[in-house]
């Protein structure tokens, strides 16, 4: 990714935490269009906090988060809505609405934000489900599906309005290696064929290698980014002990 391309996300001097407890201290990075960008780190290092700040669920203590040029920090009303339309989010557990079928889950934003006729919304939602490999499952309730299928349906829901950026929180958490690899493959395929930018929070090494163009590593004690780069490069040429341990799966 060369620096001539405008970044699609720019995080500047972000500090965040809960109450007096600081989790992230003055961190900055950029995400470029079309890349799969992984936020990695050990448990409790603030990966999910960072994600929640980037999607506007939490307000940082300081700093700016520019999504396609607009600052999501402090945005409200129309400007917040237009930023949120550019992003889609898959939550760790999928967060599908349990009282709706898969098709209704995926169709929801089409019904709310477009004037598409009913059958059009149904067809488009069914196509999104087909894209994530769930064609024919439209009439199922979320509770009738496995964890992996729920996450794939959540991705279909997140991308129904063709957002520029998809945020995925721990896509491989709680899945077996085969299902998890299938999900990684799906992420790569969508990134390459639909030119969506992915921001993925993960701590699973196999999954990081499989999907990431670039990784940032957060470290709990420093509360900062300790490494940035493609995963192979981080594994082979880092001088940070924590990053080395992470990529070589060594205990402290």
């Amino acid at each position, binding site marked *: 990714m060369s620096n001539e391309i405008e970044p699609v996300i720019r995080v500047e001097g972000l500090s965040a935490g809960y109450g007096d407890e600081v989790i992230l201290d003055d961190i900055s990075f950029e995400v470029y269009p079309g890349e799969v960008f992984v936020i990695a780190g050990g448990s409790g290092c603030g990966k999910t906090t960072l994600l929640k700040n980037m999607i506007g669920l939490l307000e940082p203590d300081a700093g700016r988060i520019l999504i396609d040029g607009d600052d999501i920090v402090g945005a409200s009303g129309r400007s917040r809505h237009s930023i949120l339309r550019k992003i889609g989010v898959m939550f760790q557990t999928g967060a599908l*609405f*349990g*009282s709706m079928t898969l098709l209704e889950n995926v169709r929801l934003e*089409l019904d709310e*934000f*477009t*004037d*598409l*006729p009913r*059958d*059009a919304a*149904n*067809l*488009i939602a*069914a*196509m*999104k489900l*087909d*894209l994530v490999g769930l*064609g*024919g499952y439209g009439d199922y*309730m979320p*509770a009738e599906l496995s964890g992996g299928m729920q996450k794939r349906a959540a991705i279909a829901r997140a*991308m*129904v*309005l*063709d957002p520029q950026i998809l945020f995925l929180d721990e896509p491989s958490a709680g899945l077996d290696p085969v299902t998890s690899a299938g999900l990684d493959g799906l992420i790569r395929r969508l990134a390459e*064929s*639909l030119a969506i930018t992915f921001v993925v929070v993960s701590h699973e090494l196999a999954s990081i290698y499989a999907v990431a163009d670039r990784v940032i590593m957060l470290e709990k004690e420093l509360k900062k980014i300790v490494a940035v780069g493609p995963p192979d490069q981080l594994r082979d040429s880092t001088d940070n002990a924590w990053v080395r341990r992470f990529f070589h799966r060594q205990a402290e």
Partner: protein
Amino acid sequence: MVTLGYAGRLDSANVGALWRQTADILKHARPSRVIVLCEEIEYCDGSGAGLLFYLRLKGLKQGFAVEFKGLRPEPAEMLDRFDADRFAEYGKEKRHIHPAEEIGHFAWQLFVDVQEQLAFIGELHVAMVRCLVRRRQLRWKEVFITAERAGANAVGIVSLIGFLFGLIMAFSFAMPMRQFGVDIYVADLVAVGLVRVLGPFITAIILAGRSGSAYAAELGTMKINDEIDALTTMSLDPVRFLVAPKVLATIFITPLLTVVANVFGLIGCGVVMLSLGFPLVTYTNHVESAIDSGDVAVGLFKAVVFGGLVAGVGCLRGLQTKTGPSAVGISTTRAVVSAIVLIVLAEGVFAVLFHYMGI
């Protein structure tokens, strides 16, 4: 032959109107061949691809050929990713359920529900007897916590409702009875009605709304969080572990709350009688002569049964909770409705039974 041309941005904001126009044209034209001019499409997202794919599906279903002219490679590639065969089911009407099937289903559900209730009553009795025989099996701490929450904390609402009930009853009886000059007998009427029937009845209804629902919600949430399954795998019987303490505590506190309701009901009635000009001693004498220990015993016995019904059905509905975000809400509703129905049914049975027994 029909020629359609799209221009500009085919995105989710614009596709809606285009889709309607397209469907309209196709409905009236009944073409054998459709040519779609795509040179001037500037941008095509998933919704745009949906429109183009819709044309392709429509063509397959109605037997006309669709040709996209000048479609750029990216949307063409996106379109080719979808296999039309997999969407064969799209647009089909859902199967309607025949009324007879629905009635059958309902009857079967009712049968299963009754079966489950009977099984639960059996399990509960076994668990209770076991707990009474081997007293260490019962979680006494849980019993006292439930007694506090469902009993002591309910004294305020029970006294308020009891007081107002006595007041309202006395007032509404007093007006017509005064016309016949027998308004002093309002005291007898209210005393008997309250102690034998209404005291236990209103206490049980308050208990159903306040505690029966809480039991269902608590057990329902535990069921959803797999806590009930966790107990089962530890070889702990959920009925003994969770239900028995609640039922026992509720059976214990319902008669006590009934006494509170009765006392405050009589105070409410007394306020009306005093305001009608009767001295306090006349009122108390009438109350004393109207009710005897048998009436009080009947009322308290009913309260015990009602307490068991409310707690039992509350816990049962909680244990029957299914999955999903609305499941606990449904269980709570079912707990309160079932409790009220059971209370009224039991009241009816008692009325007939005590009449024939001469109590």
